[in-house]
């Protein structure tokens, strides 16, 4: 066992279901102690990848290792050192909070005072002190999710796998959940998390964006923004955002302005262009022709959402 080995290494990981290739030649490394985000739309191959990484599914080609051990050959050595949580299915609904935690404890061989101590920690972390006897099905989504996370780390795993942990949970609970993940990382736990929420991607140390089974962006959020973005993002607050989008797309098509992307963000418009300073004047001119006033126009740091939309267009 190599303590310096990366938390997860995937090389050429491929899964075919008949003619359909769900995951296609995927490579990635997850370093120790980071939150690694695995992003992608529904059906992009996220869950298939996490299932192969957990040893629940046999890859068609390629290999994946966790903590330097082959998932396929050394499953039994890996299992005690990883934790797994999926938002919906981790807990037994008809068991009470305490019964669920006890089951996790017994599964990972915790006993006596250590078990009691860990269960106490878990209850504090989930904010469920005094509700030990509540049936899990009677907890609301956010509580259940925090309980599932506390249960998944009861045995203090080295690597924690989270499959869509925040699906269907309200934004405040999601925020609280991510705060908990930062605490875990501070305790040297590596977190591998799949999600389709773009805003959560910004919270990850590094991430991979998967689409149709292939990784199309990989690295830290800053790296991805730098490498994947062709130009800068200009945020415009016009008097009529919808018409602005239409006008600017027309100018792009006629070749008047070199605009890569024109996207509507509520009452704002994001424009991607290789040379923003030059286009600024052109945009102002094109819009004033159509009697649209510009309240504000500035160059902004692109969000990951900008980047991914750009990536997916290609």
């Amino acid at each position, binding site marked *: 066992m190599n303590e310096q080995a990366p938390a997860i290494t995937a090389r050429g990981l491929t899964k075919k279901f008949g003619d359909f290739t769900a995951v296609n030649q995927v490579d990635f490394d997850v370093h120790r102690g980071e939150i690694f985000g695995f992003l992608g739309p529904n059906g992009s191959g996220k869950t298939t990848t996490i*299932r192969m990484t*957990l*040893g*629940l599914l046999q890859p068609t080609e390629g290999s994946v290792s966790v903590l330097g051990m082959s998932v396929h050959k050394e499953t*039994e050595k890996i*299992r*005690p050192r*990883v934790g*797994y949580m*999926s938002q*919906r*299915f*981790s*807990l*037994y*609904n*008809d*068991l009470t909070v305490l*019964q669920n935690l006890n*089951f*996790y404890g*017994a*599964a*990972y*061989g915790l*006993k006596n005072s250590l078990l009691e101590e860990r269960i106490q920690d878990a209850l504090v972390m989930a904010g469920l002190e005094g509700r030990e006897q509540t049936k899990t099905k009677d907890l609301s989504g956010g509580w259940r999710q925090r309980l599932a996370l506390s249960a998944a780390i009861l045995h203090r795993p080295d690597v924690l*796998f989270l499959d869509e942990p925040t699906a269907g949970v309200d934004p405040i609970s999601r925020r609280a959940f991510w705060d908990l993940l930062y605490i875990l990382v501070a305790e040297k736990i590596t977190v591998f998390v799949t999600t389709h929420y773009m805003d959560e991607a910004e919270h990850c140390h590094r991430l991979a964006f998967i689409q149709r089974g292939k990784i199309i962006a990989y690295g830290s959020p800053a790296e991805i923004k730098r490498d994947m973005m062709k130009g800068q993002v200009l945020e415009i607050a016009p008097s009529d955002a919808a018409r602005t989008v239409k006008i600017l797309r027309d100018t792009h098509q006629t070749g008047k302005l070199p605009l890569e992307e024109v996207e509507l963000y509520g009452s704002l418009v994001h424009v991607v262009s290789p040379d923003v300073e030059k286009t600024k004047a052109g945009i102002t001119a094109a819009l004033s022709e159509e009697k649209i006033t510009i309240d504000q126009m500035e160059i902004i740091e692109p969000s990951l959402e900008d980047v991914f939309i750009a990536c997916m267009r290609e």
Partner: protein
Amino acid sequence: MSPIYLYTIFTCLPKSITMLRRIIAIAQKEFIHLRNDWWMPAFMLFGGVLELLLVGWATSRPITNLPIMVWDQDQSAASREIVTTLINTDTFVIEDYVSDMDTIEDALDRGDINVAVIIPPDYSEKIADPSGQPTLPIILNGAESIPALAALRAIEGVTRDLGERITLQRLGMSPDEFESFIPSLRVWFNEALNEALYTTPAELGLMLEFTVLLFASLSLSREKELGTLEQLLVMPFSSLEIIIGKAIPVIIIGFVDFVLMLSMVNIAFDVPIRGSLLLLLILAFGYLLVELGKGMVISVISRTQHQAFLLVMLVGMVDFMFTGYAAPVEGMPKAAQFFANIVPAHHWLEIVRGILLKGAGLDVLWPHVLALAILGTIIGTFSLRYVRRALD
């Protein structure tokens, strides 16, 4: 009767106490599910007992009081006598006297009567005439074959006596001078040919199969349906630990169910235990493991509990047909007879009946015990391999 289970448990236990602890953890969790889902164990424990109670109660008495319709066109002493004799067998009760065929046909169509007796106008005349050939048309409702057979037996008895009497009369002999052919029939094992003694031991055996099969089939399909199986597989449980942990409640409840059912038929329906009770319990335990293996395979094939349930119904129905309970195996076509011999339930029912009614021991039952052991080993090994492969 599945040494592979016992072998694996026996060789793996000393390996580590942690394995035992993990098995207990799963078994404990299963028992919590059962406590929360109370109707399930209640059904498992008392469903069989209730079923047996109904079967035993309905079949414990001979068939009596079959409704009969009479169209007496003769209205003579002789015609009244034959009707009275039929009624005196206790098998029949008069539904009505009628005077046309339409009413009889209608009543048969509706299923209101099982038997119709039509006495011809010249019935008494032909009996009195030394060379007369009296006939007695009787219609049986064959749609209900079991009452029809009971009716047929009663009618044949009555008409044979009558035929004998007419013959004697015409020969001018008195009954004392005549001794006809009397077969010396003796019924063993069920002296009174009590239907309940036949049905309840068979049902007892079948209910054990059904209970274990259903219970085992839900064990994994339930977690699959809920989505929790993945979590279980990611935990450090080996497939064997999961299988054993899940099997323990099935074994305990199945066995308790069998003991409850056995006590019930013994007390309520006087079903004797003429052979060794210990042997019966040991074989019941072995048979339970065979069905457990089948149930686990069904459980791992099915994606939902619903699917598992339907598969159990299918397997149970096929088994039932080949146990020899519904129709004797000896009367089946050769291919079906062969198939019956590879159905564990068939051998199990022979064993139950043999021990309970015949007081048979291993010296007599060994072919069935051996067959069960061989089938059990094959099914057990296959199930264990198959379920482990599916879980790994």
